[in-house]
């Protein structure tokens, strides 16, 4: 490993080192402002390093990691999301927990884990990145030690995530036994080559079974139906900023590595495309139908994100360059939007020690807190895929990719599923704007923290800007995808 390698690894090293530093500082300095500042600063520095790494990309650093513009695209998204979350978390934690050093340290470690996922080129990096992220999340989910809901969510997540990890590992082992390689792309290509010989060759059967176990492992992490059971409980129990991390960065990172692994081969080629199609349809409808029953905003968003992952699977099933671009663009839009929605939940929750998650807590905020409510409304519209928002264009891109690939049935299923979803998204807006006489008090209409107000404003601006002028974003996505899937 050379100095140049270290330079291109800087985007991963910076958050890991900063995490260690925060942890060490926490031992003899309880200044929360310092921890918070370090975390946000480190993520900003990591973003800077990402910018510099574009100069040396693409670069393979040992067989494990590859720093190319695809990885850098996702690193930007992940670090930006984590940085914003760290900002939202400060006032939230201030009313709940005295010790914040571990929180920021783990947040930085989680960012490292997600970064490794985005760069990984090898099953070992995939596994270690995923586990760094997951083990950080165990503690982050249970961070509110006095709140039994938080602890319970952590326990639930721990058990199911570890179980899914062992499935994932077994899948990797089977694939390795069949193909003899642990590199992502060659392994998946070998699975695709072996799959048609099922029944004649032992390796083909191992490869197929391995592919299924791998997919089940991924399906757990992404919360696809029927492996989604953990998601609503964990979303509800976890502290709001951590929920946002699970919903955005962690899913984005797992999707990044999934696309890198299967994109060039095509999910349909690996075998079991029919099964995955069924899973995608179940996920879209299951998520949306279950969301109809929720009275808790965090659970509602959890089910909605289940459904959104179903849409992402549609893009993945569509395959090809168009599918990969659509999926990447969808992830971009989804992450920004979900971040904004949870940002509002976090800010509202930071005004008192009790979590603002039941829908009743949002009654009439459209008139009491016009700016926050408008932000949430924009995000909800974007999740529902209504113009002029990023979510709308993302939906068009995915539908387009599916239709272009000749999967019209899947496209229609997605359209109908998002039609179902309109109902519960509208419910949120109904609660915010239509259920209570407005209250003339406009005293505290802005979020208490200036930084958070700016962060939300940036997110709203981005969501609408992407919806109105997507060309530069499409271009960024095109460049990123071109490195893993040359047109």
């Amino acid at each position, binding site marked *: 490993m050379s100095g140049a390698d270290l330079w291109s690894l800087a985007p991963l090293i910076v958050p890991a080192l900063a995490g260690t530093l925060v942890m060490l500082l926490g031992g003899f300095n309880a200044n929360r402002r310092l921890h918070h500042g370090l975390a946000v600063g480190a993520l900003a520095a990591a973003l800077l390093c990402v910018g510099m790494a574009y100069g040396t990309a693409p670069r393979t650093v040992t067989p494990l990691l590859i720093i190319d513009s695809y990885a850098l695209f996702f690193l930007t998204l992940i670090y930006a999301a984590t940085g914003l979350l760290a900002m939202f978390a400060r006032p939230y934690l201030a009313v709940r927990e005295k010790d914040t050093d571990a929180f920021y340290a783990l947040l930085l470690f989680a960012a490292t884990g997600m970064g490794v996922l985005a760069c990984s080129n090898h099953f070992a990096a995939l596994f270690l990145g995923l586990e760094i992220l997951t083990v950080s999340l165990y503690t982050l989910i249970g961070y509110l030690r006095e709140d039994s809901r938080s602890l319970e969510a952590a326990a639930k997540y721990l058990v199911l995530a570890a179980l899914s990890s062992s499935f994932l590992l077994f899948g990797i082992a089977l694939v390795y036994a069949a193909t003899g390689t642990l590199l992502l792309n060659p392994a998946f290509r070998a699975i695709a080559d072996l799959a048609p010989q099922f029944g004649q060759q032992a390796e083909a059967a191992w490869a197929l079974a391995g592919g299924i176990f791998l997919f089940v492992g991924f399906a757990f992490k992404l919360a696809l139906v029927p492996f989604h059971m953990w998601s609503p409980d964990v979303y509800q129990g976890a502290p709001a900023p951590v929920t946002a991390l699970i919903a955005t960065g962690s899913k984005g990172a797992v999707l990044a590595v999934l696309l890198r692994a299967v994109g060039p081969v095509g999910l349909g080629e690996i075998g079991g495309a029919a099964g995955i199609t069924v899973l995608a349809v179940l996920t879209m409808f299951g998520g949306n139908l279950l969301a109809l029953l929720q009275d808790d905003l965090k659970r509602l968003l959890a089910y909605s994100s289940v459904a959104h992952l179903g849409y992402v699977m549609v893009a993945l099933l569509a395959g090809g360059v168009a599918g990969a671009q659509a999926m990447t663009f969808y992830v971009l839009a989804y992450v920004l939007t979900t971040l904004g929605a949870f940002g509002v939940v976090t800010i509202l929750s930071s005004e008192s020690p009790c979590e603002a998650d039941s829908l009743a807590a949002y009654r009439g905020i459209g*008139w009491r807190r016009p700016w926050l409510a408008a932000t949430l409304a924009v995000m909800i*519209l974007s999740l529902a895929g*209504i*113009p*002029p928002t990023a979510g*709308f*264009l993302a939906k*068009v891109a995915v*539908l*387009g990719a599916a*239709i*272009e690939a000749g999967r*019209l049935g899947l*496209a*229609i299923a997605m*359209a*109908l599923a*998002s*039609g179902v979803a*309109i*109902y519960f998204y*509208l*419910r949120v*807006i*109904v609660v915010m*704007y*239509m*259920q209570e*006489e*407005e209250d003339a008090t406009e005293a505290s209409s802005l979020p208490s923290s200036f930084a958070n107000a700016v962060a939300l404003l940036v997110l709203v601006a981005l969501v609408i800007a992407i919806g109105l*002028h*997507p*060309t530069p974003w*499409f*271009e960024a996505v*095109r460049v990123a995808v071109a490195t893993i899937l040359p047109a």
Partner: protein
Amino acid sequence: MSPQILTALIAVPLTGGGLAVILGRRSDDAARWVSLLAALLTVALAATLWFGFQETLPAAQGPVLEQRISWIPRYGIEFHLALDGLNLLFVILTACLGTVAVLISWREVTRAVGAHYLCIMATVAGIMGVFLAYDLFLFYFFWELMLVPMYFLIGVWGHERRIAAAIKFMIFTMVSGLLLLVAILTLYYAHGAATGNYTMDYTRLLGTQIGLSTARWIFLGFVAAFAVKLPLFPLHTWLPDAHTEAPTAGSILLAGLLLKTGGYGLIRFAVPLFPDAAASLATPLAVLGVIGIIYGAILAYSQRDLKRMVAYSSVSHMGFVMLAVAVWQITALQGAVMQMLAHGVATGAMFAIAGMIQERLHTRDFSELGGLWSKVPKLSAFALLFVLASVGLPGFGNFVGEFLILLGSFPVTPMLVAGGVLGIVLGTIAMLALMQRTFYGPSRNAAVIADLSPREVLALGILAVAAVVLGLLPQPFLRAAEPSLAGIISQSIPFNPADPEVGLDVLRTAAENTADFSLQPPSDPTGAEIAPASRVPVAESAVGLTGTNPGVTTESSPGSAHAIPASARAGNEETGS
């Protein structure tokens, strides 16, 4: 004329709405005035277009003013607005009804005034975009965009059961809209795969070669969205709720404009893009249209709520538009345009009156109304005027519209026309019953109420003048729309003569059977004016025409130019095979 004026038509109301919400934080009146100003500016822009293109319009089949800016080049999407005679009429209607909506809600709305005006103006801007868009993606963009402020209008400022109505409205329109989106994308990729040119441009997508069965599915995707808006008979159930629960301004925009986007979409997009599919599905659509006419009228009669009654009468009136589109005849289509304009004015006014009554008596139930004539004579006189307009009394635009539709459809499908006439009769009964229950008879309400204020007189006056002008001087409007419609019809002759046109065969047989039914030029003054104008497309397709059925041509008088496109289509088919 500068093409930026088209963008301005969208931007001005939107800016006005934005300013309203900002100024509205200080004072409600400021919000009202700035919206009114923006609305009037929009009217001025529309008027400029109208007078500026008086000379060019009758000669131009295509757009007279276009603006194109590259928007999302990756998908071949442009910000492409274009103006022709057809959408110019709807632009003017939108501008006028937008102004009326602003005036009407002046005193009615006291809560979150700025936001209310933002919603009105944003809806107006979205509808403008729908009418002007020449890019399918842009069209869909505005199509969805106009729903959001309308949803807020119904849900926030509506009446008792507003939330359920708003959600129902949104779900119906959104789900059908998603099917439209899938249909647009399918068309886009089919066209791209066939030609290598991936574009959302309307003019380039015209004439895309698609197999009939695929085309039918895509066509149905378009029809789903437009039929929900129109609304077509089984898809109308959102309409009575939404219209009833919406605040007055919302009802006016819904009935006056939103329904028209459905009819406009059918004429502009659905049929011309898929002529074969449209031809093969014409019969069921026409039948559904006529069922809507009769069903709407019957249900209107049995309502106890003033607004619901007007809402059902809308279902009835818009059934005529569906009939005209299914027949696809220049005369019928001109009638459809007339019908939509006139219905927008008259029904908008009826909802305004219902809103005024509600504001004064806090009820819309017939059992608590009655005898209003003696209390509020001005209001009642206006009501009478608009009721007469709605029932299609000669002298009003609705008469011209319904008459032309029936005239155009009769040679094609006399049975359905008979059904339509029955619907008119039933509708008349319903509307007269409305008049009777509300304004005549004994008063059931002791409340002392004020008659119209000058502002209300102004609002209703605008609409009254419009209704009368449409009825007495329809020629300029017909002449404006005529070349565009002729252009659209000439583009939508089926391209693939090999495909059997199952449905249309039925209709055409009917047309040939009645071809010797010689129609006299209508006695109505308007008829004489239509005839010469509508000869333009006749000359173009004369070759195919004489080749097929000389009997039809020689026997049809100049007034029955409607017979031409159907036989022209037949001629085309024959030369092709």
